[in-house]
């Protein structure tokens, strides 16, 4: 049987490598952001659960770096080999101001990363496929945690208002992260993912619609400014 990586076309290979790198970096930074609240959750139980989620995200990140090593064909000498300043999504570059911000990111961004991971669980590329199953299993609890907290906080009009603005920002970034229409098509066509950018965005929208509605927001309010999208970094630039 031929090595699936060797037989991969160059454009597919470079697209996959960039996507996995982006996923790994975002998961690493998400883990760091979670860790900042792991000792500051509103209840001891909430803090413990968040500590476990921190460990999950950092673990996923490390596993994905391992995949990058395979893709690159040489071992890394350390994290510095992978970390690129500015690679992660803008909303992860600063600590979350409040617990409500953290909940928004769990529901609207962590879930976007998981939407992509889920699309790789049927991958014809074994090194990717075998790494994603456990991630999806662990992320089920992140989903439950985030949605439960959001539902709880959103009952309060004042908190709902606090959450609305970051929710729109996070949602916009998450939708952009999948890429513009037609993006990731080579990965979809070769079976490396079971969805392209548009399909991933649709799945993500179905996943988060009820959360947005709980915040009195509508999906239609989310407009991605594609003219500002940076394809090299798979993100929208930070607002000045």
């Amino acid at each position, binding site marked *: 049987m031929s090595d699936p990586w060797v037989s991969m076309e160059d454009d597919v290979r470079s697209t996959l490598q960039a996507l996995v790198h982006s996923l790994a970096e975002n998961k690493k930074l998400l883990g760091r952001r979670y860790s900042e609240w792991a000792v500051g959750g509103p209840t*001891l*139980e909430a803090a*413990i*659960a968040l500590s476990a989620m921190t460990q999950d995200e950092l673990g996923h990140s490390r596993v994905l770096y391992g995949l990058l090593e395979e893709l690159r064909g040489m071992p890394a000498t350390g994290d510095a080999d992978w970390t690129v300043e500015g690679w992660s999504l803008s909303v992860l570059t600063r600590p979350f101001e409040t617990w409500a911000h953290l909940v928004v990111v769990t529901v609207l961004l962590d879930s976007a990363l998981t939407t992509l991971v889920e699309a790789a669980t049927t991958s014809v590329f074994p090194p990717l496929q075998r790494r994603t199953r456990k991630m999806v299993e662990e992320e089920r609890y992140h989903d439950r945690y985030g949605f439960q907290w959001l539902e709880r*906080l959103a009952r309060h009009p004042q908190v709902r208002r606090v959450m609305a603005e970051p929710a729109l920002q996070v949602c916009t970034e998450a939708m952009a992260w999948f890429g513009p229409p037609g993006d990731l098509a080579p990965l979809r066509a070769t079976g490396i993912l079971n969805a392209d950018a548009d399909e991933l965005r649709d799945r993500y929208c179905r996943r988060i619609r009820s959360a947005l509605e709980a915040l009195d927001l509508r999906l239609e309010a989310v407009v991605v400014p594609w003219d500002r999208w940076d394809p090299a970094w798979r993100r929208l630039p930070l607002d000045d």
Partner: protein
Amino acid sequence: MPVLDHVEIYEVFARRRREEPLRHVGTVTAPNVEMARLYARVIYDEDMWDAMVVVPRAAIIPVEPRYGGSSWRSGRE
């Protein structure tokens, strides 16, 4: 109305093997059953449990008050 309004205490029971009885492993404080299940799984993960259940403390009915029923019902440890 406070943001963190209602919480309830749940008793957590688990067993390592199917033939063993469930035993009490601890408690969690949670706003609802779904969060109680999630917290129990995360906090009491020291074993590969065959089964783990949560029971609202308020649902436990003391056979007689002198068996400590009053403290269970009031939520005190």
